[in-house]
């Protein structure tokens, strides 16, 4: 019964997202960037083919993150504000299933968005250069693992704050998460042991989004770094579950106004 409720809520969240014109605009814009990269390569110096691949990979990453944050920061808040949650939670389902269902629906939306952009990228590459090697698809899977973690953070903030505050928090986590390796390096180079310990603690507590970055491998069409890929998947699964767990704990305690 709970599994069925999660599926029903996920499908509804997906349906709500795909009926949102803003999502279409963002996906359209991402597609346009991919297509325009073909022309941009003509006016750049250097390896034209790599420019196209680099812009394509970057566009998929950027728009994936933007859509995850845009939809994620209002994912739960919107339900509370519009009070749609009243009649949903009056059904025989545990509260945690609501959070998991909403999250799963947003992940389904992001998976479809990444798949659409990947299909467009593949077609463009096949026409312009050659059929992309498997590393491109592995890189896209790694991107999805990154989006899973980012969405979990956005969902957590969405259960506790308004979209503006949640967006500010999510953006902060995203920015820090992209600097995680620098925090590690900073800690190693620091002379004070206290600073080193603080940097290490910060590094392990905050997400490291760089771990998911296989874009360079995809652009330069290198061999698939399987070990790094599976580490990233495991990291995302464990970390996303923990963050989603916090969102559930916060949601369980809530009194709906």
């Amino acid at each position: 019964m709970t599994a069925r409720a999660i599926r029903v809520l996920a499908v509804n969240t997906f349906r709500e997202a795909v009926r949102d014109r803003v999502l279409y605009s963002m996906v359209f814009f991402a597609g346009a960037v991919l297509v325009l990269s073909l022309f941009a390569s003509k006016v750049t110096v250097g390896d034209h083919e790599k420019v196209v691949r680099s812009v394509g990979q970057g566009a998929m990453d950027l728009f994936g993150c933007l859509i995850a944050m845009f939809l994620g920061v209002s994912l739960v808040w919107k339900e509370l504000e519009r009070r749609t949650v009243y009649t949903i939670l009056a059904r025989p389902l545990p509260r945690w299933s609501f959070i998991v269902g909403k999250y799963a629906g947003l992940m389904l939306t992001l998976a479809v968005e990444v798949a659409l952009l990947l299909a467009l990228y593949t077609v463009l590459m096949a026409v312009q250069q050659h059929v992309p090697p498997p590393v491109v698809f592995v890189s896209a899977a790694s991107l999805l693992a990154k989006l899973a973690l980012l969405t979990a953070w956005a969902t957590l903030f969405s259960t506790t704050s308004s979209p503006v505050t949640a967006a500010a928090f999510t953006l902060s986590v995203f920015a820090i998460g992209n600097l995680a390796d620098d925090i590690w390096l900073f800690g190693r180079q620091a002379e004070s042991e206290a600073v080193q310990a603080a940097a290490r603690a910060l590094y392990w507590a905050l997400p490291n989004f760089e771990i998911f970055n296989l874009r360079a491998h995809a652009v330069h069409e290198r061999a698939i770094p399987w070990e790094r890929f599976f580490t990233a998947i495991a990291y995302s699964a464990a970390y996303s579950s923990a963050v989603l767990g916090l969102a559930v704990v916060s949601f369980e305690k809530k009194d709906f106004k």
Partner: protein
Amino acid sequence: MAEVAAIEARGLKKVYQTHFWERPHTGLDGLDLTVPAGGVYGFVGPNGAGKTTTIKILMGLHGATAGEARFFGRDIRDPAARAVVGFLPERPYFYTHLSARETLRLYGALSGLGGAALDARVGALLARVELARFADVALGKYSKGMLQRVGLCQALLHAPRLLVLDEPMSGLDPLGRALVRDLILEENRRGCTVFFSSHILHDIETLCDRVAVMVGGRLRGEGTVASLVGDAVLRVEITLRLGAGAPAPAGAVVLEGGRARLAVAPEAAEAALAAASAAGHTLIEYTPVRKTLEDVFLDEVERARPVDVRRIGVLS
């Protein structure tokens, strides 16, 4: 064996405190309530009496600070207890991107229904609330009254044993209110227990077997409507045709057409009639006025007010 109550609450309490520096506010103060299975139960009280708080706790939307409650003997903290309950919040809100049909399919699926049986049930309910023509229109285009009807459909979808309705007639036109009244009675005839809060005391009086009166987070009265209002006569209203040239009785209101109306205490009615007859007036109407639920309600509200507030009220 005694029949298990549809709703049983014991010592239900809710204290609100948003921030630790704020003074706690008691929304519900140790509510003991038993709603027998099979009847229509009214839950009345002024704004802030704790009606919606009680309903939100029962439906798992608020956590109780203390106490416990059960639906048909099952602890409300167990989500499965809600499987036999249909709920309509005070102002139902739905996903505006869905049509009425899609909405009801969603709620049906969340209640474990599906397939052709669900589709048939959705169609029948939409026809019952006269929304069949608009079944595939997005709810974003619905009026408040139409949304209330969709709300009723989602509450009835899984043929619940208990209906919990928070102000179901609120904001409805007379036709909508009549429809809700009919649905409450239909569901009750089917064997469903109905528990509903309302400000419209006439509806409570005509629909309910039992009533609970809430004031200031506490239960102030509970029982059948008859036991609450009693059968004592409050006053007698006498309408007279005035005799030619005879003055109207003292305290009477003179009406058009040579008539006058007089309100007297029950024990003074006989003497008033005799005096009127002696003065040459003719009796047209004699109406004993009994206590209504509204009188009970106002008495309880007045009794619950702090003494100093009552005095200020009298002085002003």
